[in-house]
């Protein structure tokens, strides 16, 4: 037995109330609730009871939730936050590992090239590159923020872009103002920092792409 438009609207209102706005999850939960209610109706259960049963099932998954992994200031429906946590855990591990390897390899590479190569012009070049990346991330931020359709990746981009944007800006400032940031004998951590920023930035770009892909697929 199919649900009427007003009955579907009740489900929509429930999801609005739970602030599940991200379409990649919302459509899925909505479909699950509708099919569940329709099956209950077919078994002779009233719409009111069937809807309440579904709400009881979903309430724990849609309650407000925050986590150490995303920062306790960010609160959202548990289902969405858990999806973000699953993504971030994977990214942290990958980013740290690839940054450590790249930094190690670069330092080995630096030891083989002449010292005259390390002129302050390199720092200016890196500063310019990071400035472009910073500007690009700001453009993406506003593009994604003004998007009418919300996705988990949009939420995640907004959280991450703030952290990454601040660090890129800090590094940009250091590269321009500090004389010879990049030197052949530079400290491991000093090189690791910008490398990690670049890797994180790459992930930020991936979120931007995924957000647009979800919109294309679902909207």
């Amino acid at each position: 037995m199919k649900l009427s438009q007003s009955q579907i609207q009740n489900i929509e209102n429930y999801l609005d109330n739970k602030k599940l706005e991200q379409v990649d999850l919302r459509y899925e939960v909505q479909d699950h609730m509708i099919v569940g209610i329709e099956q209950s109706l077919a078994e002779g259960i009233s719409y009111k009871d069937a809807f309440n049963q579904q709400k009881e099932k979903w309430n724990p998954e849609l309650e407000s939730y925050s986590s150490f992994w995303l920062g306790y200031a960010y609160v959202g429906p548990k289902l969405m936050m858990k999806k973000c946590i699953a993504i971030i855990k994977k990214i942290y591990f990958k980013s740290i590992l690839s940054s450590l390897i790249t930094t190690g390899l670069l330092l080995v590479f630096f030891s083989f090239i002449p010292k005259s190569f390390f002129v302050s012009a390199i720092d200016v070049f890196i500063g310019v590159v990071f400035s472009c990346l910073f500007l690009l991330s700001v453009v993406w931020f506003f593009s994604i923020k003004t998007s009418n359709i919300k996705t988990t990746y949009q939420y995640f981009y907004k959280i991450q872009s703030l952290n990454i944007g601040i660090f890129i800006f800090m590094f940009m400032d250091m590269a321009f103002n500090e004389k010879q940031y990049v030197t052949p004998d530079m400290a491991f951590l000093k090189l690791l920092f910008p490398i990690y920023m670049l890797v994180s930035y790459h992930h930020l770009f991936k979120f931007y792409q995924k957000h647009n892909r979800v919109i294309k697929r679902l909207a």
Partner: protein
Amino acid sequence: MGNSKLYKGSLNTIILKLLDEQGKMYGYEITQKVKALTQGELQITEGALYPALHKLEAEGLLDVEVAKVDNRLRKYYKLTEAGEKETVNRLAELEEFIRSMQNLVNPNWSIN
């Protein structure tokens, strides 16, 4: 979920196995299929199913296909190429685990 602690570690493998057999499935369909196959013994909760599906998708083992059904959008999950390979590995691991458990619990029993 009945005996949730015992089933919890196998949930991802169960999902992969079902998708391997069925081709593509949506969330509610998976819960009902598992319920039917286990005669109601195993009931996957929404809180366990969707995070597992999203994790498998993030790992690149599942792909999503969207279809319009009754004027709304439905997300179908299906195995990627990597997912198909992983299913074989995980099923082999699970069978090995069952054999080991059986040897411990009932040495005369065999799954073959």
